[in-house]
């Protein structure tokens, strides 16, 4: 994209933002099994929406299609905020059906899951172009320096769109959200447990602050 196109694109987006009444659209991103869908489901449940983004599983790539929920009304101490939220499939650089067979899947199911998982990653990458903010979910029990985290953060920084890092699974005794804070000190981080609903109020306040 040349300089002129970039400037034109930015002016066009600014004008659209001024005159349209569209909600902000934020994407939930992260590696497989970071807890993205669990977080999405928790947000819908806290907002009294009687639906889920999808099922969750300990087996990677349970979410293989992006799913959008429109006009989610998030209430915080500082008022409410209406957002469109997209739960995306986990990003990965490698997918091997043999890994699914190790989880007791039959070969046909494992191959089908692998194919859908690759398509899901492509869909997640394509969604990046249409979002106004990113919630990057990291598993606080894992090493934060994964290439997926590095790549997503690099992309968001280059696109200059707001991002919030969520250190998830803080209910676990081996969770270490401080490692995430050390790794990415330039970005806001909120520690939660999406599974147990811990510290969600702080997350909603931060979402309102970053994505309004």
């Amino acid at each position: 994209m040349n300089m002129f196109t970039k400037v034109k694109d930015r002016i066009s987006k600014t004008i659209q933002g001024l005159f349209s009444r569209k909600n902000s659209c934020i994407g939930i991103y992260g590696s497989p099994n970071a807890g993205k869908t669990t977080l999405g489901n928790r947000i819908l449940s806290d907002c009294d929406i009687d639906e889920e983004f999808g099922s969750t599983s300990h087996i990677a790539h349970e979410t293989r299609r992006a799913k959008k929920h429109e006009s989610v009304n998030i209430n915080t101490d500082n008022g409410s905020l209406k957002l469109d939220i997209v739960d995306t499939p986990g990003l990965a650089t490698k997918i091997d059906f043999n890994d699914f067979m190790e989880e007791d899947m039959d070969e046909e199911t494992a191959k089908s899951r692998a194919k859908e998982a690759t398509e899901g990653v492509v869909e997640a990458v394509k969604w990046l172009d249409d979002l106004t903010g990113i919630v990057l979910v990291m598993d606080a029990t894992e090493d934060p320096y994964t290439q997926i985290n590095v790549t997503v953060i690099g992309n968001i920084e280059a696109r200059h769109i707001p991002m919030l890092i969520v250190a998830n699974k803080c209910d676990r005794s081996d969770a270490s959200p401080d490692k995430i804070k050390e790794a990415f000190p330039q970005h806001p981080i909120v520690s939660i447990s999406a599974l147990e609903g811990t510290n969600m109020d702080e997350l909603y306040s931060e979402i309102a602050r970053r994505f309004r």
Partner: protein
Amino acid sequence: MADTQIDLVSNAKLSSMATMEKIRYIIDETKKGKILVLENGLLPEEETKLIEMTMSEIDSQEAKYTGIEVQSYPSKQSSSIISKLFNRSTKGRMTIIGPASSLHTIKKDANIISEIIR
């Protein structure tokens, strides 16, 4: 164990290529079993394009090609006003890329990336 070829790719070589040429080059070389060390890595948008293209090349029926292992340090933001003005504040960093079937990360932190080949 069969020999593994490791190519150190200069920034001069990569920067002479268009984005899709770089991606095609990386995928083709890793499909041959080679490991590439890119002097200055890829731009963030090139990294996501690489992920996208890699997914479309994965063979989910025979698992002959299961994707890539790729590691780089977290990006460094340039503090120069000129870079920021021209939207070039994120610099690529040294990056290692290889076939997922043979290159494995054993440890990574802010300053050291440890890989094994098997």
